[in-house]
């Protein structure tokens, strides 16, 4: 189960607490990075449903003016997207381990 | 449109075994649809089986009867070729009936 350890760590890091109140600029930057990562994951045809829903939550929070929550959600979406990209890359070979031979 | 009632009545000696499957949503009225609105109760209340002019079996159903309900029972006093009339009415007043030959 070596592989799932890095996944869990990636997720935990993504939820690191915020230092000061985020403003709209922070949110826009975080959202853009998250959206890019999400597009990359979709391109690999390995998108996670939670990435999509967290990204949507970020946007919703931002529309409501709550940039703290919006930025945190965007960061989490980025972490999820990156984890799914990592999963796609590692599974390129890892699947063979489970194959019935 | 094909009847909503599928029935199989087979006679074996003096005993006729009856199985019926009815196409009906049997909505309980306690379930919400995807938009969050309650789906109104819509279920068969009475199902009647008549043979040779006599009610041989009557079912009173509530909302806890499964969707596309099924029932099986047997009765005596009928023979191959007799007609078995099946009819149901639901809480919205809708109904359907069909007649099957005992095979």
């Amino acid at each position: 189960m070596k592989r799932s350890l890095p996944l869990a760590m990636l997720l935990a890091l993504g939820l690191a607490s915020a230092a000061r109140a985020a403003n709209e600029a922070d949110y826009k930057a975080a959202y853009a990075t998250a959206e890019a990562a999400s597009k990359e994951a979709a391109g690999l045809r390995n998108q996670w449903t939670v990435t999509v829903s967290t990204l949507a939550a970020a946007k919703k929070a931002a529309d409501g003016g709550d940039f703290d929550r919006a930025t945190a959600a965007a960061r989490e979406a980025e972490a999820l997207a990156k984890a799914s990209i990592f999963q796609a890359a590692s599974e390129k070979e890892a699947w063979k381990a489970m194959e019935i031979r | 449109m094909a009847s909503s009632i599928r029935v199989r009545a087979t006679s074996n000696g003096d005993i006729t075994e009856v199985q019926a499957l009815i196409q009906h949503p049997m909505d309980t009225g306690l379930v919400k649809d995807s938009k969050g609105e309650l789906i109104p109760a819509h279920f068969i209340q009475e199902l009647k089986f008549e043979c040779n002019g006599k009610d041989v079996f009557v079912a009173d159903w509530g909302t806890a009867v499964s969707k596309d309900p099924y029932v099986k029972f047997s009765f005596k006093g009928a023979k191959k070729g007799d007609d078995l009339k099946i009819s149901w009415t639901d809480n919205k007043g809708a109904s359907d009936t069909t007649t099957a030959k005992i095979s």
Partner: protein
Amino acid sequence: MTTTTGALATRRLILQGAASVALLGLGNLPFAAAPARAAANDKYPEEAFKQKHEADAIKALYGKTAEPSDKVKLDAPEIAENGGVVPVSVTTTLDKVSSISFFVTENPYALAASYKFADGTIPGVANRLKMAKTTKLVAIVEADGKLYSATKEVKVTVGGCGG
């Protein structure tokens, strides 16, 4: 056995054979020319179906209480594969049966189904019921004016009411 070849009919026949044999055993009950039995009242028992609890529903339906009897055979799964479609059946060796009813105690409304039997109709019924969660299932048989019951617990892992 459901994967036998052949058309719809043959598969059905094989299954029927098994089913009718099971019920046949009941056929040879001594059936005296029973007097017109006190069938539960004929119209739809609206009140009984509204009761939440099983005891109230039985009182509303029959107006009396039941005593457990091993002559009432209640067949239901130990763990329902799906709470929405639980195959349940009752057979009984009691005589002069006028009504059989099923109560699912943990459902919003206890009374699930009630069946009225004419003379000559064999006292047994199989049906498929919904069960909200793990529950006691009570079958009541009205025979010669008295009530007999059997109870079984059915574990339900997935609530049968959808939504």
